[in-house]
């Protein structure tokens, strides 16, 4: 699968190079990683075409782990990640002669999705931990003092993500803490959109995904204590008041220089930050966009 992806990426880069080879020297920036960030990265790459048509940014997804692995192996210029690199990965990169430098390019609020008919509007992180965590006591909606219409036996259908997604890793860290594991028996969906889809169709379900995947057919829980909970939004993710918002990263090998530096600077400029806002994520700094 990785192989196919990289071949596709090489092929598309190759096509681009051939297609543009009429003009001056073209530079290709390889950009790979997080599926959460892939839409934004694609939009950046397209937007940058108008700024500097001599630089081609080849974007591919595959997940945070894939991008970081590629950076360690020195096959990409910029790795996208929806989680920070682990110390183990940094050490591995250093030992193979790379020097990963972290850039925070935006923030993403993880929304907790509930079915439209679910009367719950507010949940605390502790309640989430009891639903998602190993040995967690909460297995029915009745335990939370509500009755969900259309949900048989009030059994909570716990929807999660596959275990190597950055979203999964961040949710575990933010909600369950470093040591605690997820319960076995969660439905592990392969993609943020799948989580929202299944919650939409299943009255008993609860799921989590990036705010960008929200739609009108599901509810989002307000996270925090009763009375002082915070709704997930771009604003509450940027100012840090929402409890389960995570930074989104780009990693370069060493301090960026040349074309890569210009590209990173453009991403952090008002124009670049408006692109990430437009895609439903919070920008890394406050910007005003038209």
């Amino acid at each position, binding site marked *: 699968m990785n192989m196919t992806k990289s071949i596709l990426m090489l092929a598309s880069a190759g096509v681009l190079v051939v297609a543009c080879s009429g003009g001056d020297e073209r530079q290709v920036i390889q950009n790979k990683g997080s599926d959460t960030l892939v839409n934004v990265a694609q939009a950046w790459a397209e937007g940058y075409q108008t700024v500097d048509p001599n630089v081609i940014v080849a974007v591919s997804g595959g997940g945070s782990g*894939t991008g970081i692995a590629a950076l360690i192996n020195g096959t990409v210029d910029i790795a996208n990640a929806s989680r920070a690199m682990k110390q183990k990965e940094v050490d591995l990169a250093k030992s193979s002669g790379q020097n990963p430098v972290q850039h925070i390019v935006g923030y993403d609020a993880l929304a907790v999705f509930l079915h439209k008919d679910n009367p719950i509007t507010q949940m605390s992180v502790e309640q989430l931990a009891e639903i998602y965590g190993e040995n967690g006591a909460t297995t029915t909606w009745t335990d939370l003092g509500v009755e969900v219409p259309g949900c048989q036996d009030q059994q909570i259908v716990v929807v999660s993500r596959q275990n190597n997604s950055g979203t999964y890793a961040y949710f575990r860290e933010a909600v369950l803490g470093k040591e605690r594991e997820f319960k076995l028996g969660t*439905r592990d969906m392969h993609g943020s959109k799948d989580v929202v889809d299944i919650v939409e169709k299943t009255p008993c379900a609860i799921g989590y995904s990036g705010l960008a995947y929200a739609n009108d057919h599901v509810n989002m829980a307000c996270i925090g204590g009763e009375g002082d909970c915070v709704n997930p939004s771009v604003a509450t993710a940027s100012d840090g008041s929402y409890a389960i918002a995570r930074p989104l990263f780009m990693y370069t090998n060493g301090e960026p220089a040349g074309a890569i530096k210009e590209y990173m600077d453009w991403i952090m400029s008002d124009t670049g930050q408006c692109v990430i806002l437009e895609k439903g994520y919070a920008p890394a700094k406050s910007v005003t966009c038209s």
Partner: protein
Amino acid sequence: MSEARAQASRVGQRNRDWYIDKAVEIIVFIGGISAIIFIVGIFVFITKEGLGFLADTFDFKEFFFSPNWRPTSEANPTYGILALMAGTASVTGLAMLVAIPFSLGAAIYVAEFATGKTREALKVLVELLAAIPSVVWGFIGLSIMNPLIIDLFNVPIGLTVLNAGIILGLMAAPIMTSIAEDALKAVPDRYREAAEAMGATRWQVIFKVVLPAAKNGLLGAVLLGVGRGFGETMAVLMATGHAINIPTSVFDSVRALTATIAAELGETANGSDHYQALFTIGIFLFIITFLINLSADLIVRGVRKG
């Protein structure tokens, strides 16, 4: 005279014909053994990728007897595939319960009752059913069967053993029908004629004479269906709910071995323990399906008889 000349020219062309002949022979030979080359190549590849895990982290007891599949845990990664095996086995088992009556009925009808155009049409339709891509079956499981099961059985979620079992049963039925039909056709007509001459009804002919005579072929058909069930990936990934769980009823969500590889391999760093553990599952699946297909083949050939 002209005949002699023709012969002479044929002799003159012998060199060219001989080369063509040799070339074709070599091409056909490569085609013939390519299946073996590929299968050996694949086995060597997955073994090589999984070897690091087998040598270092692999713990036989944990791997086969623990339901804890937590390969990305920060504190303590565990690699237990018991729940995944239970998932694959339960879905395949139910699929066979669905597929056997269907495919046996269809095979008996096509082989023994249907004639002319009905027979031809049925055969074509059965083959067509086998050509439906598995992602389409998975989509049917996800978007049609899921709400249907929720409504019919009053359960919280329809992505269950039942859903995947029915989908997989329908997927396996066509190939089982084809093989079973061949097995029934292979029973010599004189058996039927003899039975009918003794006053047996059609029913009795089929159940007392044809089915017992075709026993091995039918068993082979079932085993091939089981092999299909074990190896199927996309449809079970979509229809089971993909939850690590040892099922206690058909309304539980489960997760299959194949689906685990499909869902996790793409985002796993090459060479990590997790990556190698997934390949170890691949080795295990390879051995299982190899054994199933081998025994199906041996049974179909009737080696057991001799």
